[in-house]
């Protein structure tokens, strides 16, 4: 239902987002995971725009982990120490038998993606629309993650339309 009009690529990127969320221990799939999913799938306009601005999957994962670590240290907890104490069995990964729901922010991003698709006069929902939807959460995790990697939503959106214009030529 939610995947109506999605292209193969954008659907793949949401499935990849789920895998990223699981790997990173995100008990709900956030808009930052949608971003990671686009990078992991590495196909389509959104991935191309991100890549051209120097955003890489590895760097984005590290940024996400860094945000978790910072949030913990803000209440006096060292993730490194927790990790050291627990030993090798400690991993953030969420077990396969646990379902990971979409977060409200991720839902909002996908709703916004559809709105952008319509406004752009497109009849397919591609990775570019998903990315624009993600950027619609102006103080969301994804936007802050991108800021941490030196990428502003404005520059990214411009690049996206530039690539789109070029593809249409």
């Amino acid at each position, binding site marked *: 239902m939610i995947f109506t009009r999605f292209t193969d690529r954008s659907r793949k990127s949401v499935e990849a987002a789920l895998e990223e969320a699981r790997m990173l221990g995100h*008990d709900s799939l956030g808009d930052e995971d949608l971003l990671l999913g686009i990078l992991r799938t590495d196909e389509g306009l959104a991935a191309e725009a991100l890549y051209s601005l120097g955003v890489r999957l590895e760097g984005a994962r590290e940024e996400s982990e860094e945000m*978790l670590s910072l*949030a*913990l240290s803000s209440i006096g907890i060292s993730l490194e120490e*927790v990790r050291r104490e*627990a030993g090798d069995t*400690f991993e953030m990964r969420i*077990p396969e038998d646990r379902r990971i729901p979409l977060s409200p922010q991720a839902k909002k991003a996908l709703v916004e993606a559809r709105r952008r698709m319509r406004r752009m006069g497109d009849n397919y929902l591609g990775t570019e629309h998903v990315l624009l939807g993600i950027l619609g959460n102006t103080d969301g995790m994804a936007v802050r993650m991108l800021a941490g990697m030196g990428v502003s939503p404005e520059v990214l959106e411009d690049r996206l339309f530039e690539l789109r214009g070029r593809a249409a030529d």
Partner: protein
Amino acid sequence: MDEMTRTRVGGPEDPREGLEAVVALRRTLEALEAAQVENAFVAGWSWARIAEVLGVSKQAVHKKHAKRIRAKYPGRPPGRKGRDL
């Protein structure tokens, strides 16, 4: 630094930071519980003993952890160690 200028996480000036710390802690807690239950299992502890120390029912521990841990250590029976402590 006096009391007024100290940054208070989750204080009225930035509830979001405080709430996000809760999320980070919840996720870390889940991972820590999974690791420590696995450690106890590897050390030969029974599900009953693990549950007792966690302060929850044996069923709860089993439901949450047994499948994952059994898949990781096939053929290893649940331990008996700690039963008579």
